[in-house]
Every structure is written in C-alpha cells, then in structure tokens.
C-alpha cells in the first residue's frame, strides 16, 4: 500500500480551477518530485495536503488513514510536515527553541506543571532539549543552538526549517522549493541533506523544485503539473525527456 494516495484531487477558487483531477501515489521511502511551470498549482497541492485549503473534490489517504478535509493540526499529527517556499521560521526564537516548538505535541506536560516548575517540567524540557539537539546534529546546526534564527545565514535557515519540520515526527515531509535562492554549492549540500532525511530519518520526501540539477540529481520519480492538471508522471529520466514536458517548459 502506498504511503500517500491522492485521488482525483481538485479545488476551485471562485471560477478558477487551480487544481483539477490530480492523482498521485507515493510509496514509503520515495524521494518524489513535483515539478511544473510557475502557477501550475504545485504549492496549492501542498496546501491541500496539509489542510490549509480544503479540497473541493477528491480524497487524500496517508498510510491507510483518510485525511481529506481534516484540520492542519490533525494532518500534522497524522504525519505530514512541511517547509515553505519563503522561509517561515520563528525568527525571534533561538535555533533550539524553533525545533522545540515543533516538538510541542510529542512531549506533553500541562501549563500548570510549567508555571509551578514541577519535577516533570524539568525532566521533559531536558528531554526536549536533547531530542532537539539530536535533530540539529545531522544538519550541523547543533553548534548554533543558541543563535536567534533570524541571524542564521540563508542556507542554514533552510536546514533549520527542515529540522523543525522533522521535530513533529512526520511520515511524509513536504519541501517547497528547498533550493530557492541557493547557489550551486549550497544546492549540492542541500541534496545531501535531503538524502540524509530520507535515509537516516526514514522519512518519505515529496518536494517542489525548479532547480533541475536538484530534481534530476536526487528525485527518483516525478509528477509534472501544468495548468492545475497532471501532465505526466514516472521515473525522473523518462519524464524529463518527455516531449510534452519539454513543450510545457520551453514552449513550442
């Protein structure tokens, strides 16, 4: 059974059909790419998958559980986390606190426990700090734990966003243009990071990307979206050589 099964997904904003009849099946352990020209509806699909938008049609199943129309929090608990096209860290919080914010639901203690600083508070906060540092280590961010997120260099902010998303312990991680604004060297580093996420954390990855070096470098399978509809899908090499895909990107 596929980890993520999307069937005939669609959403209309007024008269605009932003996504229409979109289906995809992602297996556990896949590194899957979603590509397409600007305005094709890629980010809209991420917003549908994470419950930011409610689909007008179709269904979304994660690991056998129907999550169609569920709230963002329920979907996050079910196991989908994401990063954003334009970085949206909690910029005034420290690197460590950003990741700890992502751990909120995994370590439960009451507000009263926090106010009165009961022994449970100290134990769980210590466990959270340890877990957060563990999540930061593969991204080489553990040394920057006390830095305010806004003061990190750009490439590290991208990595921190991934670490924060992983803190919610997802089965599926959605990366929205992770290489946006990166130079080729940073992109190469990012490709390793994404492979680490998949191989060491055991998280399935679905990413949106325009950077073809990254897409052809690490994605195993692709879906191409054009004008809100699925144009083509399959193994990366095959899809990128498809005449329809080349036409959508380059014109006639």
């Amino acid at each position, binding site marked *: 059974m596929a980890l993520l099964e999307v069937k005939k997904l669609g959403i209309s904003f007024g008269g605009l059909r932003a996504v229409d009849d979109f289906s995809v099946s992602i297996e556990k352990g896949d590194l899957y790419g979603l590509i397409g020209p600007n305005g094709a509806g890629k980010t809209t699909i991420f917003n549908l998958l994470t419950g*930011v938008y409610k689909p007008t049609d179709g269904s979304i199943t994660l690991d056998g559980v129907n999550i169609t129309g569920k709230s963002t929090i329920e979907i996050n608990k079910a196991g989908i*986390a994401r990063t954003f096209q334009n970085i949206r860290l909690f*910029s005034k919080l420290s690197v460590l606190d950003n990741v700890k914010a992502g751990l909120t639901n995994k370590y439960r203690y009451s507000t009263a426990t926090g106010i009165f600083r009961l022994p449970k508070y100290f134990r769980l906060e210590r466990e959270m700090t340890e877990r957060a540092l563990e999540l930061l280590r593969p991204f080489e961010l553990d040394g920057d734990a006390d830095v305010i997120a806004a003061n990190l260099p750009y490439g590290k902010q991208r990595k921190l966003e991934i670490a924060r998303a992983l803190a919610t312990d997802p089965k599926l991680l959605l990366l929205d243009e992770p290489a946006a604004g990166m130079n080729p060297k940073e992109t190469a580093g990012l490709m390793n990071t994404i492979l680490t996420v998949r191989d060491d954390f055991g998280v399935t990855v679905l990413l949106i990307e325009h950077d073809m070096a990254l897409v052809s470098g690490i994605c195993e399978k692709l879906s191409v979206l054009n004008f809100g509809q699925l144009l083509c899908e399959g193994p990366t090499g095959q899809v990128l050589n498809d005449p329809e895909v080349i036409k959508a990107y380059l014109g006639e």
Partner: protein
Amino acid sequence: MAFLDYLINGISLGSIYAVIALGYTLVYGIAKMLNFAHGDVIMVGGYVIFTMMSNVGLNSYVSVLIAMAACTVLGITIEKIAYKPLRQSTNLAVLITAIGVSYFLQNIALIIFGEKPVTFKSVIDLPKITLFDGQIVIKSEAIASIIVSVVIVVGLSLFVNKTKSGRAMLAVSEDKDAARLMGINVNRTISLTFAIGSGLAAIAGALLCSSYPVLSNTTGAMPGIKAFVAAVFGGIGSIPGAMVGGLLIGVIEILGRAYISPQLADAIVFAVLIIVLIVRPTGILGKKVNEKV
C-alpha cells in the same frame, strides 16, 4: 522626606499599573489585538473579591483566588464569544468590539451592584513599615503591590521563555499558520493567553482596590487606560517593558500630582505618552521594526 514618600507611592501605584500593563502586553504580543476590556476585567475582579469578603464572609486570600478563577473564565469566555469570530477581520473591527465588551461589562456591573460606589476592605492585613522615627510610613498595600508585581514579571518571563506553552505562544505570535503546521493548537494558545492576562487582572484588581478602596463600575476604566499607556511607553509586547513603563507612569503621575498640579496629573501622563511616541515610536524597550524594502 516628602519626596521619598511620593516616590514610594509612585512606585507602588506604578507596580499596580505594571501588573495591568502585563495583561495588555501579553494579549497584544501574542494575539496581536488591543483588549480594551482588560481594565473592566479588573473591576469585575474587584467586585468578586468584595462580594466574597463582605457578603459570603470568606478569608481575603481565598477571595482573591476565587476572583482569579472567575476572571480567567471571564477572559476565556470574552475571547471565545467576542474576539474569536473576528480572527480574520480587520484590527479595527476587533478594537471596536473590545470597546463594546468594555461598556457591556461596566453596565452589567451597574445593574448588579448599582451606581453607588462601595467601600473596599483591603485584602492585605500585614503591618505597615515605619522608617526614620515615623517620618515615612510605608503602607502594607504598597509593599504588597511592589513584591507581587516583581514576582509576576519574573514568573511570567520564565513562563513565556522557558516552557512549552510559552514557546507555543511566541511561535503563534510570529506566524500563526506556520505554528499550526508544526502541530501547535493556535486557538488553545490564544485562549491560554487571555486566561493568564485575565487572571493577572484579578490580582491587579485586588491590589488597586486595596490601595484605593472605592469600587464602582468604572473603577477599572482609567487605570486600564493608564496601564495601556504604560505598556506602550515600555514597548508593547515586551514583558520587562510593561514593568518599566508601569513604574515610570506611576512615578510621573504621583510626582506630577504633588509638585505640578493635582488636576493636571492625568494630562501629564498622556503628554508623556505623546512625547515618547514621537521620539521612540516602539517604546523604551520595544523592538525596532525594520521595514524590508
């Protein structure tokens, strides 16, 4: 010696303003709204304590605890009924609603307790401190106000910066959508903010009415506005800023009343606000906002 006396009075009043200002600043910092009904929650807290002590005959500290519980419930209820439906509306709509809630609370109190002010019995029964052979007498209410406000500021800072719920509040204050996508329950976090702010309002009510023992349905209005000035003065959204702003406003008000003019004391407070806003729009401890071009 008179100056020292005024200064202590000012710090004491300022401490009360600080506790009220914390409620404003907390709600503004996290929910990004000005809860102008905050001052009236103080008045409700005052009446709850008065009723519990005078009519039910309870111990003063138990009465304060009951008032805190009542105001916490009231704060959560106000947020749920009046503000939550407006989460997506303009700030102006929420502001006007808050003013509406303020009048609503004042008029409910008017119906229940009548227009005649009641005399509030101090909740603090500690001995006063006499210094310099009786030249300076510090009332126990003043000492209590100062100690309580310091404890609250320290406690609240630790809570917001060092606990899971506090971290969730900071995350929500920066980016509600991103917080939600990280599994943080935004509605519950905002409710918690109102609960804490309103619980503090009850404590402020106890301190205010103990120091100035006349309680009517408009008791909370003016201190509420001055505490709002204090919050803006210190830098709205900043917890230490609320403390600094509260103390300064209290001291300025009392010294202004003593040395310049009793009638102009309030005018001086607001004039100070105008000057601060011209010189430093983000307040004394407020963060400078850099507009990205």
